């Protein structure tokens, strides 16, 4: 069965944004906008968050300076020999909600995963000038191609939940929460409601 209409040109022609975000780039992002990310980001999911916050709790230094960075919620599958990484799509973000305000207060500028954030996280984003993006869930094989380098930074014992540094190129994402406090999921719901009104 041939499934392919063509290579997905749509995702090849998105406005490019460098990582880590410059203050200007961060301000320019708008909820609902599709962007193509290139540059450096850090990864972490449940166990990395638990460990980062435990270190903060103990007054210890973090293994990485998160100021101005983007933290991508992902637990990649193992790389086959000769490959940079396995599948590496986003995991669901709400599981990180209880930890996120703490990291935003440190200066983390952006998070990326999938699904809506809690009211507390949205408030913390507004207070600290941070954004939230969604990557394309379930597109782990495609997104694997956008990751050009992967380096273990900390918490190796957490396996796929460790903290990695990725170099990405043309990694597509959708801006969900922008600096103006807009939420794209809520905008979609509101537009639908208005259409029915």
């Amino acid at each position, binding site marked *: 069965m041939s*499934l392919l209409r063509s290579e997905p040109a749509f995702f090849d022609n998105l406005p490019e944004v460098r990582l880590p975000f410059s203050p200007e780039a961060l301000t320019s992002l708008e909820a609902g906008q599709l962007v193509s990310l290139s540059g450096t980001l850090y990864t972490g999911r449940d166990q990395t968050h638990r460990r980062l916050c435990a270190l903060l709790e103990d007054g210890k230094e973090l293994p990485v300076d998160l100021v101005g960075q983007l933290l991508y919620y992902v637990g990649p599958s193992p790389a086959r020999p000769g490959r940079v990484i396995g599948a590496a799509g986003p995991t669901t973000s709400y599981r990180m909600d209880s930890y996120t305000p703490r990291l935003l207060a440190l200066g983390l500028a952006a998070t990326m995963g999938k699904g809506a954030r809690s009211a507390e996280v949205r408030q913390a984003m507004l207070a600290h000038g941070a954004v939230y993006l969604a990557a394309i869930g379930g597109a782990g094989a*495609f997104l694997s191609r956008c990751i050009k380098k992967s380096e273990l930074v900390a918490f190796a014992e957490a*396996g796929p939940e460790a903290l990695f540094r990725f170099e990405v190129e043309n990694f597509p994402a959708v801006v969900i929460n922008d600096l103006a406090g807009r939420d794209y999921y809520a905008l*979609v719901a509101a537009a639908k409601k208005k259409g029915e009104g």
Partner: protein
Amino acid sequence: MREIDSNEIRKAVRDMAIAAAHDLEPDILEALLAARDRETGELAWNILDLLLTNADIASRERIPVCQDTGTGILFLELGQEVHIQGDLNEALQEGVRLGYEEGYLRKSVCDPLTRKNTGTNTPAVVHLEIVPGDHLTIRFLPKGCGSENMSSLAMLPPAAGTEGVVRHVIDRVLAAGSNPCPPMIVGVGLGGSFEKAALLAKKALLRPVGEKSARQDVAVLEERLLREINAKGQGVHGFGGITTALAVHMEIFPCHIASLPVAINIQCHAHRHKEIVL
């Protein structure tokens, strides 16, 4: 009496684990393709298109469709005329362990309290049914937890009736939002007991995507649920559009006169499943 060697079972499970992670079955591919061709929203259309491209890359380059290669769920139908040589459960678990190790799949199983990863993706969850005949059917459903976490079970009062069931299912699906990676497949287990309803909801996911219930009134209910879920417009990944769910599958079983159990097991669009008959 027919003999089946447990080594053959181990090999079959290993191969299914690897194939499931990389090669989506025609039922889900066709459902995604049909959804793409129906879709009117630009972003939704392009994401569905990307998901088809993703499936193609996964299959050709042997990269998992999704990094969450899941908890292994095994459904066995064991013919009562079959005798297994060796340890059946060990063969199943060893098959899963080998598949996840040799297939470069993510090991996602951990202790619920310490959260320490078992490192092997075992133990897998096994459901065994004894059936007439001399065959062994094994179905492998690796279940990612973005969708599994959005599942639920309610013991409704009988007075809730069909309308109560419909409202409950729609409420849960909408509350899940974009967390379970829509477009999703909604498995509903109706009736039975507490654990039976949950198992029915999961078994409903084994049905080919979009295949209707053989019972007419249930098929009508499935169609109504699908229509009403999609009418809410959450759409692909919560970005709007007409495809929040690809299908609703409902399995039913008689229940106690005092009870109306309803379980919802949500499956993401990366609906991986394999089957073998030995």
